């Protein structure tokens, strides 16, 4: 392989990736309020400034990679060792264990993850397909560069980590010599498999998961057992290092002489699978689970026109909810089934083990706060709002009649009633189950406690119905590009989640807590509905 060609290829790749990094940086700065306005559009054309920016960005990237490796060695290898200190390992044993853990995590499990030569990344797509670089030159250069840079980024953390752990000089030398060889062997192995079977091993999630889990178990097994039996250290012992060097050199030769990079690039870089815009891919994924499938409706359903007597927005929503049964009714059935199973299980326990009855009733009465959290997860809302946007509103909001104040509010009412209806079915089932269990436990609750308990559950269910739809209508965070662009949406969501989570920590009798819940949910709902009426006609737009 010609060194000059390789240098040119790497420089080309470097230019492309740093230029796009610099552009992204400028784009980001321009979007910051106040400061962004001061940055003129013309800045994109200032090549010198951008080259400076690119160098700065590249430096930061290198520091970031170094930091990541240090973090990895620190958290995954050193920290478990430190935690196991009290097992009384000698220093030499600790050094052995360091090598053992690192070998199984990084050389064995890590080596067979994503091979550089067969990767399908946007940058590779740009360089080979769009810019027209030679796939063979590109792949060889990038594989060498990648493994070389990985080694350099790992080097400081490995040396420092090894010294801290207590490796001796010979072990450190063995580690540094053998580690890149194991990585090259992994790369070559994948190429061999690919050549024989046309399959990229690292794309098989099952295989990778098994390998990762097995690697982790083997790595931490001695620590978990309190034993200093560190098989992995032999991987960095003189004869193994010699073998690794020979096999590593053979692997390198195989990688450099591999004849099929052109075909492999064609195979791997399929346009549909790669988007040159990772943000777009992420955005698409956000709505993957709400896409309509052909199995969601039958041909007869489409012709039947059984809702012909309904009109306008009611008609629209009836059809919408009918075709989204899979996302609404099935989850509801599943939840009802869980409630039923829990009810039967607890009921049977109460019937057959009477000694539990008083404890059970007491536990249940203190469990009310936890229901905030339970209802948060049990309520249907967030997903259906995404479905509403993706399958319905993203298109209809382009029409002026759909954006009229009356239309938006009417649509909101119908949707709220539908979602609340579904959630209340579940809430009613929970109330019935709780009531039934209290009855079976034979302990009498005061009617006041009982009523408060059930009101709370019903109100929580209403609360979450309002919450998701309110956020969707007032914040409308999605754009036509399926991006999310509203910090307020996320903030309110996180706050509500935190509050529900914190409720898990409260232990009190129903009536006290019920007052708080009733008050809080009621006022939130009133405020939310008022905000919807005031703002939704303006905010419920496509961004």
């Amino acid at each position, binding site marked *: 392989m010609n060194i000059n060609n390789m240098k040119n290829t790497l420089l080309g790749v470097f230019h492309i990736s740093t230029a796009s990094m610099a552009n992204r940086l400028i784009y980001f700065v321009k979007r910051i309020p106040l400061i962004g306005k001061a940055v*003129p*559009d*013309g800045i994109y054309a200032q090549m010198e400034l951008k080259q400076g920016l690119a160098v700065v960005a590249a430096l930061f990237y290198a520091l970031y990679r170094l930091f990541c490796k240090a973090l990895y060695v620190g958290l995954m290898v050193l920290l478990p060792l430190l935690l196991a200190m009290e097992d009384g390992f000698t220093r030499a044993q600790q050094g052995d264990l360091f090598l053992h853990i690192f070998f199984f995590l990084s050389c064995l499990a890590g080596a067979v993850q994503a091979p550089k030569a067969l990767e399908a990344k946007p940058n590779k797509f740009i360089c080979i397909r769009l810019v027209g670089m030679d796939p063979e030159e590109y792949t060889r250069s990038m594989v060498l560069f990648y493994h070389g840079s990985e080694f350099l980024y790992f080097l400081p953390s490995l040396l420092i980590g090894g010294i801290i752990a207590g490796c001796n000089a010979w072990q450190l030398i063995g580690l540094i010599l053998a580690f890149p060889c194991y990585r090259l062997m992994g790369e070559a192995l994948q190429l061999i498999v690919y050549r024989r079977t046309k399959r990229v091993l690292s794309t098989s999630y099952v295989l990778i998961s098994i390998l990762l889990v097995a690697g982790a178990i083997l790595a931490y097994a001695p620590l978990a057992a309190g034993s200093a039996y560190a098989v992995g250290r032999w991987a960095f012992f003189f004869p193994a290092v010699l073998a690794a060097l020979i096999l590593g050199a053979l692997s390198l030769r195989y990688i450099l002489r591999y004849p099929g990079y052109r075909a492999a690039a064609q195979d791997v870089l399929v346009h549909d699978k790669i988007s040159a815009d990772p943000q777009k891919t992420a955005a698409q994924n956000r709505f993957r689970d709400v896409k*309509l499938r052909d199995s969601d*409706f039958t041909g007869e359903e*489409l*012709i039947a*026109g059984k809702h*012909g007597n309904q*009109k*306008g*927005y009611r*008609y*629209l929503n009836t*059809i*919408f909810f009918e*075709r*989204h049964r899979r996302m609404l009714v099935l989850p509801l059935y599943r939840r009802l089934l869980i409630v039923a199973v829990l009810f039967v299980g607890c009921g049977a326990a109460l019937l057959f083990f009477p000694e539990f009855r008083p404890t059970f009733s007491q536990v249940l009465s203190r469990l009310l706060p936890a229901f905030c959290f339970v209802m948060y997860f049990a309520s249907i809302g967030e997903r259906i709002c995404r479905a509403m946007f993706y*399958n*319905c509103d*993203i*298109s*209809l909001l*382009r029409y*002026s*009649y*759909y*954006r*009229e104040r009356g*239309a938006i509010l009417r649509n909101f009412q119908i949707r709220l009633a539908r979602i609340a209806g579904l959630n209340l079915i579940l809430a009613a089932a929970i109330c019935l189950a709780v009531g039934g269990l209290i009855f079976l436990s034979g302990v009498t609750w005061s009617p006041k406690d009982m009523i408060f308990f059930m009101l709370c559950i019903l109100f929580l269910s209403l609360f979450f119905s309002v919450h998701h739809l309110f956020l969707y209508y007032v914040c409308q965070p999605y754009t036509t590009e399926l991006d999310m662009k509203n910090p307020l949406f996320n903030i309110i969501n996180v706050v509500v989640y935190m509050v529900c989570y914190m409720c898990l920590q409260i232990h009190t009798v129903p009536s006290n807590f019920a007052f708080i819940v009733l008050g809080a949910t009621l006022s939130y709902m009133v405020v939310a509905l008022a905000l919807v009426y005031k703002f939704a006609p303006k905010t419920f737009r496509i961004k």
Partner: protein
Amino acid sequence: MEGQAQVILEGIQKSFGDKEVLKGASFTFEKGNIYGLLGRNGSGKTTLFNCLSDELTPDAGKAWLVQNGERKELLPSDIGYVFATPILPDFLTGYEFLKFYMDINKDKITDPKPIDFYFDLVKIEKEDRHRLIKGYSHGMKNKIQLLCYMITRPPIMLLDEPLTSFDVVVALEMKQLLREIKKDHIIIFSTHILQLATDLCDEIVVLTGGQLEPVDSSMLHSKEFEEKIIEILKDEDGHEHQ
């Protein structure tokens, strides 16, 4: 829509960042005509349409609708906007969407007919009416969009490059449809394809340098017409390099 009608644009301006796209576009459009809005790629045709239909807020300028001598601000509900890429709710069938559309806009429909009558009008086959819009072709979706406005008959219709991606048969059908309904509407039809404009339009308006300029319609079918248009459009480069 009975009687005379006009749409008057007065100094519409719109910029994106440092780039001024519309620099005070003004023009008067009359009912009964199909206007061809010609412009080069990126000249601001879609931006102008978006400003009129409330998808974008113009930085300055006004649009008026004059009906029977009465002048009022042009509202989004006066406009039927057929998008370049048709956007319709995928989860409905064409039939269901049209029923929904007619329910919602029933006070705008003067002479309602059965839904199948409308489908016949744009030649959408019986079996296609009850399929999900998700599976419709581009052309069928565009027909549905146009059909909506043939039902509610808004005074002004904006068509954003609608015929560009049609096959020859559908394009011909659409042209005939537009000719049939033109007497009741002000139809503005944006395109960068000169032949389409000369073929279908009664008047040509050129969007160049952020301004609207009329082209003498008596020249429409003459030989010099093409050269003249090219000359105007090329001028835009001159504007930008100033």
